[in-house]
């Protein structure tokens, strides 16, 4: 870890912070919660406390801005620089700034928090079913007042729970109108406006009047972003208009036509050819929680770390199961000492994050933890032929994600913490299990990363960290280090496998994949290759990759991307509802 020259630090522990303004990308409550959790990352391991104040000068002043935003360190539009912060001290020192040309989310795409309706402010559930049709964005269908709404469960038809989506017709942020909605048309500078505008502002924020005449009443508010608001381009924040015309063709969805970088865009008027108004469509965005936790590290006196997995490493990477790295803990405790709370290495899971998996110690590179060699066959006692359910109450549908998913003997297996479930097309009765991995494949650790069955020999390969096992029935060879397969140190873990026929299997790790020749148990020359070069449009750091019914599946969070053998994503859906077919 590094601190700033002179070990700049706060001379008091009870720090205050104030959020000066809010990005229109997220509901204000979502941003407040993310900042609160980001401060808690540091207060959990130090005596520091953080209190939000709503007026006056706080120790840490937080603001969103774009390009030059007043401190002489301009941001740079979408992507690139995401945020910056200043070391502890008075004035601008200790402040944190976030680039509002970025698309701020919680790291996994658009967050649409609803208001009113009967869902208590829950977020939209995309896709949802309304009158038998599936929708993946807010709609006005079923209403006569043009208000955008969404279901907050998978089926409005079944559950009837809904809420209203962010819209300037529903409310505004900030300004001086206490959240009143826009009034259209309104008069500004003698001109009539019937949409939000950035006119009159240099910071690019969209605003409207909350009475019919701004010139007379001076009442205004900032417009929240709709779910289809574009990012960047030349009409940031405006919603896509579908269908729109581009090079004479009509598009009723975002497209990457006309671009070489494959980014999805849309027009914000009905005709791009004449109006040339456009912007990028929402993507996964950047987690305001993770970026804030990093910037608050600076605001407390930490400089960038060269430990890639540390929070204070300068590059952004999305982490689903966030855990503060030992390097960060050492750095912040060097400055402020320990807190009275639990030991840093056993952090309680954060309220909105998933329980943290237990980490199995990985063997050192010098060799795998065992002395078995390829020829040796480990004899394991034969357990009973049929796996016996261990704990039928462990419902697979209660799992948020799985360590590994693969097809074995035509049945889809879901592995998690030493247990597994089977979803078989042969049994109408849905999911079988939970079964004990140890009973069926003795000698495996509880946490595994990937599994695949060799189509020719029916042997099953298991991966955990940098170790792998090969099972023929119940007897296993291993563990051995994956360097024996010719996979280099850059692969910390294998996240999934795709059987390709002719004895070849693709092994995925991070954003790369290797092609394994199963017969000789060696990866082919010319690998690794970048996943995105071939598998365009799927998440690059998928948690599970598997072949099922001849299609490639990439899982990330609760979603999966399904890709045809022609490398076309033909479906995005929920692991839980579509693959596991939970109710």
């Amino acid at each position, binding site marked *: 870890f590094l601190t*700033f*020259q002179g070990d700049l630090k706060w001379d008091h522990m009870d720090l205050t912070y104030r959020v000066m303004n809010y990005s229109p990308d997220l509901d204000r409550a979502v941003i407040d919660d993310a900042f609160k959790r980001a401060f808690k990352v540091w207060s959990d391991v130090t005596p520091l406390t953080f209190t939000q104040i709503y007026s006056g000068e706080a120790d840490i002043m937080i603001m969103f801005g774009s390009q030059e935003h007043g401190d002489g*360190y301009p*941001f740079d539009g979408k*992507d*690139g*620089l*995401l*945020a*910056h*912060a200043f070391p502890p001290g008075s004035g601008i020192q200790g402040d944190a700034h976030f*680039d509002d040309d*970025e698309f701020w989310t919680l790291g996994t795409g658009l967050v649409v928090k609803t208001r009113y309706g009967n869902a208590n402010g829950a977020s939209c559930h995309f896709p949802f079913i309304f009158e038998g049709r599936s929708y993946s964005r807010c709609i006005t269908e079923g209403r006569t007042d043009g208000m955008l709404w969404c279901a907050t469960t998978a089926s409005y038809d079944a559950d009837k729970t809904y809420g209203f989506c962010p819209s300037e017709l529903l409310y505004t942020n900030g300004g001086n109108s206490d959240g009143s909605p826009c009034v259209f048309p309104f008069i500004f500078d003698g001109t009539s406006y019937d949409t939000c505008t950035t006119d009159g502002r240099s910071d690019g924020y969209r605003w409207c009047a909350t009475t019919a005449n701004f010139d007379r009443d001076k009442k205004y508010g900032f417009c929240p972003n709709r779910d289809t608001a574009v990012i*960047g*381009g*030349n009409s940031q924040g405006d919603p896509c208009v579908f269908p729109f015309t581009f*090079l004479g063709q009509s598009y009723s969805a975002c497209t990457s*036509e*006309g*671009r*070489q970088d494959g980014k999805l*865009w849309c027009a914000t008027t009905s005709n791009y050819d004449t109006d*040339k108004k*456009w912007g990028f469509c929402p993507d996964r965005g*950047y987690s305001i929680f993770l*970026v804030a936790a*990093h*910037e608050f590290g*600076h605001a407390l006196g930490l*400089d*960038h770390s*060269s*430990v*890639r997995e540390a929070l204070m*490493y*300068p*590059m*952004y990477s999305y982490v689903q199961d966030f855990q503060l790295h030992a390097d960060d803990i050492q750095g912040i405790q060097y400055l402020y000492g320990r807190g009275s709370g639990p030991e840093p290495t056993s952090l309680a899971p954060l309220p909105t994050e998933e329980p943290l998996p237990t980490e199995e110690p990985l063997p050192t590179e010098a060799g795998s933890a065992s002395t078995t060699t390829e020829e040796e066959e480990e004899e394991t006692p034969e357990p009973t032929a049929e796996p016996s359910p261990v704990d039928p109450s462990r419902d697979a549908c209660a799992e948020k994600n799985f360590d590994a998913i693969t097809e074995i003997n035509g049945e889809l297996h879901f592995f998690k913490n030493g247990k597994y479930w089977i979803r078989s097309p042969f049994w109408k009765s849905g999911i079988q299990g939970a079964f004990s991995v140890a009973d069926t494949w003795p000698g495996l650790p509880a946490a595994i990363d990937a599994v695949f069955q060799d189509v020719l020999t029916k042997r099953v390969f298991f991966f955990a960290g940098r170790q792998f096992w090969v099972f023929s029935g119940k007897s296993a060879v291993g563990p051995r280090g994956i360097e024996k397969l010719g996979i280099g140190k850059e692969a910390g873990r294998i996240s999934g496998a795709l059987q390709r026929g002719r004895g070849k299997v693709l092994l995925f790790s991070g954003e790369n994949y290797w092609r394994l020749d199963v017969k000789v148990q060696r990866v082919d020359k010319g690998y690794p290759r970048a996943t995105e070069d071939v598998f365009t449009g799927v998440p690059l750091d998928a948690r599970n990759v598997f072949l099922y019914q001849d299609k490639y599946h990439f899982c990330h969070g609760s979603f999966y991307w399904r890709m045809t053998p*022609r*490398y*076309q994503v033909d479906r995005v859906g929920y692991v839980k509802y579509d693959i596991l077919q939970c109710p």
Partner: protein
Amino acid sequence: PLQSKPQAVVTFPGELLSPLSDVELAESYLMRFGYTTEAEVRRSSKHVSLAKALRKMQKQLGLKETGELDASTLEAMRAPRCGVPDVGG
């Protein structure tokens, strides 16, 4: 897969007509994040100072230290990141 018709490529308003070259990107990145200064670049030959700064950056960011503008270094330079410099105040 090949598209059935050749793809039209459009320069969208507000986007750079010609993005920075790799070397231009590297120079601005290394200066912005404190790995070199304009004076250093002026004082010694550009190639030498660039190689030295690249090596410094690669070491700091845990990349393979080649002193060359290789693919993984360029990828790191294009990655979204924090604006606080890596070296210096």
